[in-house]
């Protein structure tokens, strides 16, 4: 009797551990794609996370801007082991460890999965996972190898990808992960072979996985070569909520003039209010590709000196236009910005001079240093030949004369009578 009691307790204990392990590692898609292992292609490496589960905040797709690596994990809340594994991995990568060494840190935390990678360091996943490792060699041969648990590596210098996918409990498409993981892995391999950049492939992966496996809530993705992230575009607005469904419309945009409006407000718009063209629906996976793709002729524009809404976007457009016409010329850029301050496109900032424009031509970067206007003013001070204090005095004299005239008019009968009385 005593024996069977002991066994029962042991079995119960085992079950509880099993439930804990299953819960912490159930969810999420993690994927790293490397199409240019030299790191030269600005769109040659990307990483992304998505899940049916809640809390896919930015901590599930951490990116290092300076060292060009990503650390992906599941979004299982604020749990100590996951955070421990993330911090340990980050620390290893910051100190120059390879992707394989860093990812194996996850193995010392029960039920945790860490995927990591970068353009030149390769990619690896450690801990509890079900992945396909895709490699594509220079002759175009695609190899797709399954792996689960422990450590799986895409070596540095190798074109390829790692995709992890499991279904979350409660997902209506539960049980599809196995098939979709394989299909997506094969698709990634074919796209790498055909020469698509990693950022484009990332969009297709998000599309296929969100549609077919239902693990659809962002999450987000990062461009590892150019250090661009989707940031808070698709992440949940609050804790214990799901993010944006990646297979649903994100915005509508006018194909001719670029006017756009986000969902859900855009359901009311069918045509562009500016030129009447029919609007094009942009799905979240397309928006993701657009936001992490770095275009060759793009110019990174930084704006300093004002946080006012819209200034940095408008300045970017103006600078890009100016550079396209006149090249990197500080005087011409300043002139174009000033003409846009004059016509009211830029509001709340003072005129800029050529010395306020900082140009680094080899990295195609332009910095604009604005001076915000005081007192919530919208346009710069007028440049008049008279000083403002003289104008003030003249203005005050005018007011005084006006008041005297008013007094004269109001009391004209009294004044006239007193005047005639005096005469007599």
């Amino acid at each position, binding site marked *: 009797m005593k024996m069977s009691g002991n066994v029962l307790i042991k079995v119960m204990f085992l079950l509880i551990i099993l439930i804990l392990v299953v819960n912490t590692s159930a969810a999420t898609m993690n994927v790293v794609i490397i199409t240019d292992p030299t790191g030269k292609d600005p769109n040659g490496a990307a990483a992304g996370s998505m899940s049916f589960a809640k809390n896919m905040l930015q901590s599930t797709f951490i990116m290092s801007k300076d060292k060009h690596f990503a650390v992906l994990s599941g979004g299982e809340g604020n749990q100590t082991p996951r955070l421990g594994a993330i911090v340990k991995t*980050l620390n290893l990568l910051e100190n120059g460890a390879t992707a394989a060494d860093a990812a194996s840190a996850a193995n010392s935390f029960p039920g945790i999965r860490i995927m990591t990678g970068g353009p030149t360091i390769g990619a690896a996943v450690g801990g509890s996972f079900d992945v396909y490792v895709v490699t594509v060699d220079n002759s175009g041969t695609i190899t797709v190898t399954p792996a689960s648990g422990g450590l799986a590596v895409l070596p540095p210098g190798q074109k390829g990808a790692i995709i992890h996918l499991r279904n979350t409990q409660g997902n209506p498409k539960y049980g599809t992960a196995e098939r979709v993981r394989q299909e997506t892995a094969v698709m990634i391999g074919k796209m790498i072979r055909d020469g698509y950049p990693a950022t484009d492939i990332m969009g297709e992966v998000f599309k296929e996985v969100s549609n077919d496996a239902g693990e659809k809530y962002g999450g987000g993705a990062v461009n590892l070569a150019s250090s661009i992230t989707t940031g808070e575009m698709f992440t949940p607005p609050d804790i214990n909520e799901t993010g944006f469904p990646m297979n649903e419309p994100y915005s509508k945009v006018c194909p001719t003039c670029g006017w756009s409006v986000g969902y859900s407000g855009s359901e009311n718009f069918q045509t562009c209010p500016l030129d009447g063209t029919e609007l094009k629906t942009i799905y979240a996976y397309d928006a993701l590709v657009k936001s992490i793709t770095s275009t060759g002729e793009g110019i990174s524009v930084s704006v300093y000196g004002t946080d006012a809404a819209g200034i940095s976007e408008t300045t970017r457009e103006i600078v890009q236009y100016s550079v396209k016409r006149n090249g990197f010329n500080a005087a011409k850029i300043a002139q174009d910005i000033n003409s846009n301050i004059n016509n009211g496109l830029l509001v709340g900032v003072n005129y800029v001079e050529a010395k306020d424009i900082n140009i680094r031509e080899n990295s195609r970067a332009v910095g604009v240093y604005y001076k915000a206007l005081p007192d919530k003013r919208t346009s710069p001070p007028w440049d008049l030949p008279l000083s403002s204090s003289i104008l003030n005095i003249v203005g005050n004299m005018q007011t005084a004369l006006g008041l005297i005239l008013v007094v004269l008019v109001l009391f004209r009968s009294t004044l006239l009578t007193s005047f005639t009385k005096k005469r007599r």
Partner: protein
Amino acid sequence: MTYMAYASTTETDQGIPISGVIIKGNDIVPTDSIRNNIASVGFRTGSYIQGDTLITSKRKVPISEALENARQAALLSTIPGTNVTPIKVADVKLDKETGILTVTVIEDFSMVKVK
């Protein structure tokens, strides 16, 4: 006439507005999380400096105290969705002429404690 005087003057009695926050040195922690924290202690659009006082929409704080608050706020910035605070050193400098606040931070993951 008075409007012309107003429109052509370059100075106001309001002091120097906080025109922007520049954040440097962060790698993993997103710039936006640090910027939000700095904004919440008063260095945001609409605040201005008058002499040695920072005047925000909520209260008036001496500049030195406001800068110390900003430094503390920078240290408390997390990786979004976690309580991990990797910023170990922060330095804030305010240019009283232009109203630009520069925040320089250093991240260190070897000293992060996970609770």
